[in-house]
């Protein structure tokens, strides 16, 4: 446990450690509590496995929000794109209209563990390699500019502070 930290490891976002994950979650929670939307935030590593998860007190529909947060972060880490783009692929107006747009089959990929609701973002290092994902569940998309996606973006931008 108490090993020396080398220069490579000290670059803050080369790897998702528990410390980095907690820093992201703390930033997201600060923002969410200011906005008055209690939520659940999850940070996963590049394998899509949970590194840290925290659910704020008073989070609406806690069971669904927690499960969705894990699923969204997993999906973003596995697909390497924002969940928002994946959800656009499932827009019924596009299905069958554009060649290669039969993305409805995404729904059952990866043992049905993927979640295509917007609110998951991949985390990238300085060379744009995906090193993890962040997912958020709880706030409704209908509350003005406040959405799951915003909370994720706040968490990611906290890496660059």
């Amino acid at each position: 446990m108490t090993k020396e930290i080398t220069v490579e490891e000290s670059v803050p976002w080369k790897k998702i450690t528990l410390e980095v994950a907690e820093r992201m979650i703390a930033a997201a929670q600060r923002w969410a509590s200011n906005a008055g939307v209690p939520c659940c935030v999850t940070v996963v590593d590049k394998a899509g496995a949970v590194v840290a998860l925290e659910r704020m007190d008073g989070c609406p529909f806690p069971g669904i929000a927690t499960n969705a947060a894990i699923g969204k972060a997993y999906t973003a880490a596995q697909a390497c794109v924002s969940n928002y783009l994946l959800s656009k692929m499932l827009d019924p107006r596009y299905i069958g209209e554009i060649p290669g747009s039969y993305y409805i089959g995404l729904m059952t990929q990866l043992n049905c563990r993927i979640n295509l609701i917007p609110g998951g973002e991949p985390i990238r290092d300085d060379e744009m390699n995906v090193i993890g994902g962040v997912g958020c569940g709880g706030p409704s998309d209908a509350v003005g500019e406040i959405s799951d996606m915003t909370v994720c973006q706040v968490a990611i931008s906290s890496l660059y502070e």
Partner: protein
Amino acid sequence: MVVSLDMARKMGKAAIKKAQEMNRLCSVAIVDDRGIPIIIYRMDGTSFPTADIAYDKAWTAASFGIPSSDIVKLGDPACPGFGFNTENYNYRLTPIAGGMPVKNGDEVIGGIGVSGTTPKEDVAICQAGIAALSAIVR
């Protein structure tokens, strides 16, 4: 009483501190009285399925109000609970040791699960987490 995020965070930190003292790597999950996770922490370098296993153990302990290793007693052919293993309706039920209910008197208010070390050490880390809660609440 319910387990708040603040309390859960303190329990999780105490459990991780205990694991560091024992020089072990583990994942810690704390769930509320409905079996929904409040926090999950995975220490750096811990193998990745442990986060899910810790959640399963915490769910089992919280939902039945007994340590997760005691579930096997319910599946004993000599006992009326035989066939219990087929009731695994959400694939979370586990008989592996390392999940403990969090109690306030007789009332179950949550569960804590630890995975990543040997069963005996998992239970010791769980107890460190529960001890941290009783230090806060008293």
